[in-house]
């Protein structure tokens, strides 16, 4: 796995995009792993009855995608300190969810070298459905 170092990070720098091609099966797997068995994620007639256009992706699965986006980028020597997400828009199984991120700030606090990253998921229309922010600690330099 690649490692990124604090001295290589620049504000405005973009994280490699993580694309997730989602399926209903994945939502069922997520339900099993997370314990969220709400029917709106796998029972189509149920979802439609509650007024939704169809099955929707668990917000927390998208949050976990963003967690992966950040941890993949920071590498094994990095540490995820904090992540904050809001669920703003729906995504549907079968959609490709694009997870993106951008460095907004780099700074030191005590002995830690920290980077704040803006993260979000994007749908096919380019709408940010799950915006958030994350803070990671990175190793100093190679």
């Amino acid at each position: 796995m690649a490692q990124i170092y604090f001295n290589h990070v620049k504000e405005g720098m973009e994280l490699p995009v993580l694309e997730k091609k989602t399926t209903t099966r994945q939502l069922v797997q997520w339900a099993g792993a997370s314990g969220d068995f709400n029917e709106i994620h796998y029972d189509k007639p149920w979802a439609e009855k509650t007024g939704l256009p169809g099955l929707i992706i668990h917000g927390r699965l998208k949050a976990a995608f963003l967690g992966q986006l950040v941890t993949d980028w920071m590498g094994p020597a990095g540490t995820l300190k904090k992540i904050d997400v809001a669920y703003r828009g729906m995504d549907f199984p079968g959609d490709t969810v694009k997870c993106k991120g951008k460095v907004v700030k780099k700074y030191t606090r005590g002995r830690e070298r920290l980077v704040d990253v803006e993260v979000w998921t994007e749908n096919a229309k380019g709408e940010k459905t799950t915006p958030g922010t994350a803070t990671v600690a990175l190793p100093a330099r190679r």
Partner: protein
Amino acid sequence: MAKQVYYEDVTEGMELPQLVKHPMPRQLVQWAGATGDYNEFHYNETFAKVRSNLPGIIVHGALVCQFVRQMVSDWVGDEGTLKKLNVSYRGMNFPEQDCICKGKVVKKQVQGDDHLVELEVWSENPKGEKTTPGTAVAILPSRAKK
């Protein structure tokens, strides 16, 4: 837990208390998560109808097997031991319908130290069709040995 059944309490032909399950789609998804059987015709209605040519979503056979197993386990209690269970998948159970598990004592006999009972077990759908017929062998505690 229900009170313990003893070998001496059992007669051939005796029926086991029924166990009625009413699996909902949620339960099938929980089963998929617990077992890793993510076959789509257990939760995706379109897939079941179009791709698998089924009348709708069907209950996992192995889950029905577990319902039957639970009925026997509940009956033999903590002191009894289920030794063998044999089921055949003959018909389908559908979610949102009752799946009725039944059993009957076929034979009792002492073999060495073991007090054995042989059972006929099955699950039924609401039409009364036996969807999962089978047999079971269990060891029960004996009052004589207590």
